């Protein structure tokens, strides 16, 4: 049979494809629906939190930080309750990570505060002596892309039935109507910060990246 396949490239290719496609079908499909079911009480991310998640992706925090606590005593002592699949139901993409050059962040909202993050993002080594994390000062001046975050919320609502409210519509007008809510969330974060430039920017209706990523960090619980 193998000799015959080696003379018939088409059937050879079909054979290879069947053999390699097999495992994916068997392992991924059976639990697909179950694995995307949210835990009770899980709320979708707010637009500001989504914008913060985009900052997290943009600066590739995932290169050094995980968001997945394994069921070992050493991990639950350090980070809190081990992670459940239903907690990630609204995470697109998942951000579990594969490397802990820095600590896990899945429940960082439980034990770090807005002002801790502000100081830490500005100069990590002042907060954690010996830290090798770079400072992310550019997040204090770059503005978060909240319109794209809103577009994401609308997209997941319409395409994947993520439970966002009726006010989330795919129109410019709906976005303009929602914008004040995002700004209000940002003001609540900025109130706990001390950087005057950030406070001024938010007061003027602009949201620096650091405000968004802190909103996202505070949400991780």
């Amino acid at each position, binding site marked *: 049979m193998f000799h015959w396949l080696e003379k018939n490239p088409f059937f*050879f290719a079909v054979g290879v494809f069947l053999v*390699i496609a097999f*495992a994916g079908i068997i392992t991924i499909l059976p639990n697909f629906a179950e694995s995307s079911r949210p835990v009770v009480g899980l709320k979708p991310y707010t637009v500001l939190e989504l914008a913060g998640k985009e900052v997290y992706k943009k600066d590739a925090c995932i290169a050094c930080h995980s968001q997945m606590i394994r069921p070992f005593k050493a991990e639950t002592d350090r980070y809190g309750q081990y992670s459940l699949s*239903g907690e990630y139901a609204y995470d697109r993409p998942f951000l579990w990570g*594969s490397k802990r050059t820095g600590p896990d962040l899945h429940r960082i909202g439980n034990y770090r505060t807005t002002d801790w993050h502000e100081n830490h993002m500005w100069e990590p080594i002042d907060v954690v002596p010996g830290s090798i994390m770079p400072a992310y000062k550019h997040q204090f001046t770059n503005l978060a892309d909240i319109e794209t975050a809103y577009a994401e919320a609308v997209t997941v609502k319409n395409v994947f039935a993520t439970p966002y409210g009726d006010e989330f519509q795919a129109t410019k007008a709906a976005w303009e109507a929602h914008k004040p809510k995002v700004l209000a969330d940002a003001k609540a974060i900025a109130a706990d910060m001390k950087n005057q430039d950030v406070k001024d920017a938010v007061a003027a209706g602009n949201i620096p990246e650091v405000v968004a990523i802190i909103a996202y960090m505070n949400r991780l619980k």
Partner: protein
Amino acid sequence: MQSNAALEYDYSVAKLFTYATILFGFLAMLIGTLIAAQLAFPELNYLIGEYGTFSRLRPVHTNTAIFGFTVGGVFATFYYVGQRVLKVSMAESKFLMFIGKLHFWIWFFGALFATITLLMGYSQSKEYAQYEWPADVAIVILWVLWGISIFGLIGIRREKVLYISMWYYIATFLGIAMLYIFNNMAVPTYFASGGLGSIMHSVSMYSGANDAMVQWWYGHNAVAFGFTVPIVGMIYYFLPKESGQAIYSYKLSLLSFWGLMFLYLWAGAHHLLYSPVPDWVQTMASVFSIVLILPSWGSAINMLLTMKGEWNQLTENPLIKFMVLASTFYMLSTLEGPIQAIKSVNAIAHFTDWIPGHVHDGVLGWVTFMIMASLFHMAPRMFKREIYSRKLIEVQFWLQTTAVVLYFTSMWIAGITQGMMWRAVDEYGNLMYSFIDTVTVLHPYYAIRTLSGVLYFVGFVIFAYNMIKTMSSSRELTEEPQFKSPMA
């Protein structure tokens, strides 16, 4: 595999890919060495503002190494090997020549474009699938073009039986096509929201644990079909060609090929041990990872036995040295991987530096060694000049071999140290170390890895110099060498 003097092969596409492979290899290893240094000396994070942090550069390093250097090397060798094992010249078909060149330019500009978008921060944040959707579209197009090249050449072939290397190129084509498309399924938000926000942004079709399953099915097997399958195909061609020895066993190559195809795809979830994906999937991945030793070692042993009775060539021919050491590193890497996939070992190893250590004994010791040896073998035949300097190859060999050994030994120690410290408890059962203790302790190992990066990078620069000299100013050859590549 006898030579066919009547046929004049056309290497114009293979040459283009060779130049670009060297360029991307240079960039990937330069950035890799820089980010290794950043972990040891964090001040290096601020060389180019927000674009120079470790986190922003790490995906640039991995993606340039994969989609620039490795994939480029696979294409370069395909446009060389494909013609020769199928006994057909690219010059015979204007259509295939056009497709080949189009393939090159779309790949080249696609890879540049993708690198720039990553630097700017457009990222899906899925490992080795960071490229946002416009770059994904470019990749799909160039992959289809490669498929047309493969099956076009096969369509006009004279040699009816597909040689082993062709099996592996076909499998690479099919495997990556399937994996890449399914893992990158995403909805561009601009179009789904009536034109709001950035046109570059998209959202994954899978959420949470499902996304994790699909991603690591992809992530692990992108390694399989990018870093293993085509490289095995390359060694099946280049080792016999360079040594003048026939492959030791056809049956073993058959077993290894079909075994690898069937087993590899089950193993992806070993990246998700103790995570919230179903337990049975994790166990299955663990078991299949162990069984995977068989086909991996099957290929490697087949290569080593091909050299049976001819071990003197190791001292006479540095290219044989590269290839034999490459298959040895392949054996090391494919034993280390399954060990890390055992659940109790993984509990310590996961999230630590042992994992990048494992990756790099594979990519530096196996993949890059094979690509460089293959390009060295191709150079005298493509450019009709002897290799510029044997001495430089020897220097390069020892620099880079030392580098690989330093890399994986330092990361073994770093990884196991960190894994043990994370779980260490005192006599009352409390955690002994705060997280930062487990970071500062790694400084010497990060410094050793930086040194390893510098050595390997210098070796690569020597390789590039040797290749450029071979192309431009080395002694011209009057006829094509039969086996051993001539070198000054």
